């Protein structure tokens, strides 16, 4: 049953009781929170995701709760917890939903070692996927949001889940995290996109989340094969240009972007070496989203 079909009251009460099972890609998160901002944002941004009431099994049992300190009367804060363990410092209560999103990423990045986990966005056309690894601030999420609304299917904005045995990449179809100037850029260029209310003054500046397109959620269980590796770089002006990244450099860059390269060792090296041997890696500099979109459209498998 899609989350959006629950009434706000049902959703909020299941969350408060910690009974909400939310499925995103291969994972079920069981979420507990009494924060209204969490319920509101889940309803807005996860409307198409399947939910279950009180699921018998969940991969991660998470909670966004107020810590029991005196400060809760003065300036309320929230903690993210996985089975009682809080990996982060408390954040101001208005950031509760952003904290949940970061916490869910943390759960996967720190525990899902059945996959080779890369810090990268993944988009697909049919079964052919492009990997967008990029350092923070390079405009990866902006481009990912744009492409996800212009002919590409969103698999993931933050985490590429690669099955080392088959080389296939799995998606999560979760909301895209936009920061600072990117929020207005996306509002202007994608008027149809569903964005939540931006939250100011987080450790990453002002953040907003963009709902994944319904089609991406519907097809999330369809894995894809990585055909291209593109590192996008936004430049304020100038012509779009691309440059081929030599394979050894591409391999080193992917190793740098892997969350669990050290955990998987040889398995990770083999999977990444195989990836760079069949997927060309390109550096893409662009000034305008529509120009970049056309360039992506012209990619050939």
């Amino acid at each position: 049953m899609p989350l959006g079909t629950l009434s706000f009251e049902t959703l909020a009460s299941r969350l408060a009781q910690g009974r909400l099972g939310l499925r995103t890609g291969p994972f079920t998160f069981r979420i507990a929170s009494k924060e209204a901002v969490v319920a509101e944002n889940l309803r807005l941004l996860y409307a198409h995701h399947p939910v279950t009431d009180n699921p018998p099994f969940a991969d991660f049992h998470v909670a966004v709760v107020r810590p029991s300190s005196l400060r809760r009367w003065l300036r309320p804060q929230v903690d993210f917890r996985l089975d009682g363990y809080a990996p982060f410092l408390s954040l101001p209560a208005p950031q509760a939903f952003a904290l949940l999103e970061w916490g869910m990423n943390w759960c996967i990045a720190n525990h899902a070692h059945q996959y080779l986990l890369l810090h990268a966005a993944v988009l697909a056309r049919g079964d052919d996927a492009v990997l967008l690894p990029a350092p923070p601030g390079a405009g990866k999420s902006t481009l990912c949001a744009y492409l996800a609304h212009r002919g590409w299917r969103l698999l993931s904005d933050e985490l590429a889940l690669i099955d080392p045995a088959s080389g296939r990449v799995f998606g999560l179809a979760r909301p895209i995290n936009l920061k600072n100037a990117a929020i207005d850029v996306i509002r202007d260029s994608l008027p149809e996109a569903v964005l939540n209310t931006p939250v100011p003054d987080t450790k990453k500046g002002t953040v907003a989340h963009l709902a994944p397109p319904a089609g991406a959620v519907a097809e999330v269980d369809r894995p894809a094969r990585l055909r291209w590796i593109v590192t996008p770089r936004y430049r304020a002006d100038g012509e779009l240009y691309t440059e081929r990244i030599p394979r050894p450099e591409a391999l080193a860059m992917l190793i740098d972007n892997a969350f669990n390269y050290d955990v998987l060792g040889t398995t990770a090296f083999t999977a990444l070496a195989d990836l760079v041997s069949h997927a060309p890696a390109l550096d893409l500099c662009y000034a305008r989203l529509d120009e970049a979109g056309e360039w992506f459209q012209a990619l050939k498998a």
Partner: protein
Amino acid sequence: MKRKPQPWTPAALAALLRETQQLAALDLPSWDMLIRLARRANVLGLLAATAERLPADALPPCCRGHIAAGRALAARQARAVRWEIECLRKALDTIGVSLVLLKGAAYLAADLPFARGRFFSDVDILVPRSRIAEVEATLMRHGWATTHHDAYDQRYYRQWMHELPPMRHLRRGTVVDVHHRILPLTARYDPDPATMLEQAVPVAGLPGVFVLSPADMLLHSATHLYHEGELTHGFRDLLDLDGLFRHFSHNDPGFLTKLHARAATLHLQAPLAFARHQCARLLGTPAVSTTADTPRPLVDALYDHALRPLHPALDSPCSGFARWLLYVRAHWLRMPPHLLAWHLGRKALMRWRQSDFPS
């Protein structure tokens, strides 16, 4: 038919980590809780090692990823610890000190079956006290550096403790604990580590690497748990003891007799009695008769909270208080009262100063 819900006692959990047949019979809600508890207790690798012995289709599909993840983590840690053992051996070789491994690293090197899949936090070694300065200097030359830079902490370790402040490798980030005594210098009893070093046994296939003799290995493990104040790994450490009892008494029917004689020599009867009692009581460890024990219901009640996984589903309102009492008890065993008052007072003051008050 409605199944009886799994009671999550330490014994039930330990049996699930050991016996494939029990795993194969679990329903989905039990798997859900088992994976959560195993993750929190840092024993997912042990669970993976046991689940591995089942045919792949005996596990519910939703659990397979977690088992694969536990296996990957355990393999990674074993690889890292083996590498670390080799680096330490080479470093100590330069000054002619043998590498004697303690705890997890020793179980791994000796390939003790109950520890397959065990996770590690650091590598513990035992060196002669007379060589401690040389060992520290040598490890520093090979890339390890001390971690506690606060002058108080340095003095705490060097004046009172049984080990150097933990040393972290500058490039690899791995931590080695260099022990020169079994217990803190300030503890009520102070077993002589020299005879433990003398009786250390070489590890087959790893020239220059030693582990303690079976009896000493168990006594060391028992002593540590008995004196441990922060029992974050309490359940795992109890499992180690259970594994040591089972493994060594299975291999050598006279093991328990030797163990008791050795405990008497080293004045470690109290930790041994504690280990036998808690293993028998909480895990049902066979072959550890405890009939001679005097009942200590309060201590047992405290350990009920401290020796199970730290999971909110298992906690009761007094769990936090019970753990705090054991923290104080461990310090009480570790140092005389005036030192204890001074040390705990100092720690509380540091915590208060560091606490982030709203500015």
